[in-house]
């Protein structure tokens, strides 16, 4: 067994024994399940209201049957994906930071480097452990939300739905590895552990919360409850024609949004789960054609973060006197 695998095995054992981290992941799991339950209940309420309305129409002798609300089970996962992009990223930072912080705080890093281990054995082992830990966590989360949609939402899944869930779980796994690898790299890179935590938290705040919020705020349609164009009574084709005259503003707004990796993750997942109406019930190829650039961005970000962690997690940096 290589040194990296030995380190990875030891890290996984540590993570399994870390009750606090398990509690934190349990919290994310509860939040995503609650979100699905709330969305499924909301759909149930809409359906009940529709049935009551239909009964009233029938009893008044009206033969017109309005369209019933349609349940698209994967759309119930919107809130869950949003929790993963916000809270998942935060807890991924804590996990990545913790893997280096504990070695520095307990001074076990000196012991580790007293053994004949290669340059990349330590960071590679820790990143493998992160990848395995997130694989288990993401698989558990997606299994739990799928079961919740099936039980609470009374939904049935087709083969393509499972493919959509699998692809979304995979990109979620990459997204979370990225945040953990970044935090791991920062904890190795900085002399003071608190500085690493500061940088990671500020990055999380800016990339996950502030930039998407600013982009959302700048969307003219979000300025009026229910949507600007709906409130003005403007149809979709006319809306697009009007907005075409503000392409500069929209390009700036979109540019701001795409500077956040969280937005890339969100756009990709929303397309594959059919949460974005444009891709709902469409073939996977069409979703891929629409959001392949977002997948590429997440892919680059995860490799960038892993590369950064591998580059900066060196014997020289880790054995510096920690303040």
């Amino acid at each position, binding site marked *: 067994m290589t040194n990296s695998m030995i380190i990875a095995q030891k890290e996984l054992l540590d993570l399994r024994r870390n009750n606090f981290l398990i509690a934190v992941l349990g919290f994310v799991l509860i939040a995503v399940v*609650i979100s699905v339950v*709330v969305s499924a209940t909301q759909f149930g309420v809409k359906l009940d209201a529709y049935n009551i309305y239909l009964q009233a129409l029938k009893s008044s002798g009206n033969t017109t049957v309005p369209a019933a609300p349609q349940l698209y089970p994967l759309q119930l996962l919107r*809130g869950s994906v949003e*929790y993963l992009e916000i*809270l998942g990223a935060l807890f991924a930072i804590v996990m990545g930071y913790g893997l280096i912080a504990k070695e520095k705080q307990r001074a076990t890093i000196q012991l580790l480097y007293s053994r004949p281990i290669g340059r990349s054995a330590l960071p590679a082992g820790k990143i493998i452990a992160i990848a395995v830990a997130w694989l288990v966590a993401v698989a558990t989360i997606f299994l739990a939300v799928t079961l919740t949609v099936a039980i609470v939402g009374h939904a049935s899944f087709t083969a393509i739905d499972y493919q959509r869930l699998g692809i979304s779980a995979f990109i979620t796994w990459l997204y979370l590895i990225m945040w953990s690898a970044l935090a791991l790299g920062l904890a190795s890179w900085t002399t003071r552990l608190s500085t690493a935590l500061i940088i990671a938290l500020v990055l999380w*705040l800016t990339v996950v919360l502030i930039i998407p919020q*600013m982009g*959302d705020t700048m969307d003219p349609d979000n300025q*009026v409850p229910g949507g600007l164009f709906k409130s003005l009574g403007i149809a979709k084709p006319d809306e697009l024609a009007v907005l075409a005259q503000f392409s500069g503003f929209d390009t700036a707004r979109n540019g701001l949004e795409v500077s956040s990796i969280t937005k890339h993750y969100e756009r990709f997942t929303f397309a594959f789960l059919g949460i974005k109406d444009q891709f709902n019930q469409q073939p996977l190829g069409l979703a891929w054609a629409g959001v392949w650039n977002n997948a590429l961005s997440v892919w680059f970000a995860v490799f960038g973060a892993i590369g950064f962690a591998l580059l900066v997690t060196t014997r020289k940096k880790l054995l510096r006197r920690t303040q």
Partner: protein
Amino acid sequence: MTSILAISKHELLSLRREKLPLVLLVVFVVMVSVSGLIGWLTNTTVSNVWNKSTQAGLTNASNPFENVSPLYYSRNTVIYLVLIGALMAIVLGVTSTMRDRKARTLDLVLSRPLSVVEYLLGKTIGVAIWLMAVLATVGCISWASVAIIIGKPLGVQDTTRLAGFYGIALVFLMAFVFLGMISGIYASRETTALLIPISVWSITAFVLPQIGTSANPVSLLNPVPSVAFPGGAFDALNTLFRPLSVTEQFKGASGWLLSNPEVTGYFIASISIVFIATALGLLTLLLTRRDRIRGALND
């Protein structure tokens, strides 16, 4: 009284030297400064969209931003207080109580004729003064930004409303300072001390409002409080959980103070809940036992 002031002074000095609160402060001040610009840019775009639509004969509706208060330009500050401000307050609280535990100076401090209540009150006053200075600066920036956008100084009524908004913001942030301080006292590790209040914040800001209103987490990053989904158990759940979400109550109180026409509800109830949350936080903090505050860290 002298000892409380000495602790407060020391707290202020330490806060000036801490990096994390300072970095968060810079992010906060920058965001509040640009929020006015974003508000103006967006309002101008919406008005231009309305103009084009009217000229093309697509709508007869009135401009949605006609006759809105100048304070409407500051509405996004509310969300930055809920996001950055609350996190900054948590970090301030945690570092405030963790600092002495980490440095193991508490035994020495408490060997002086000083009660735990005096010690914690001193720290609270120090942090409150720091936050007051921050909010006063941010308030002046907001006032100046709006004055530049509208091309004239804000009137007495709007200035009073803006001051009231930053006043309630101080009370709101102190609730998170107390949460952070309590966590800093009880947690055995620094990371845990930070994560527990951040988890409580995420429950307050996202989970509780979602249960009652069915609003998704990202849509809750909005200065307007979410509205209950009509029907089913949502009304009852909203009645039950809404008062527990201090962040939504703060949005309600702020919306009223900033004359946001989209915000409806009971301002008195919202403001009372923010005050009650802060008072409960202070009470819990002051009830801390002497042996607890001296607990060693596992880091």
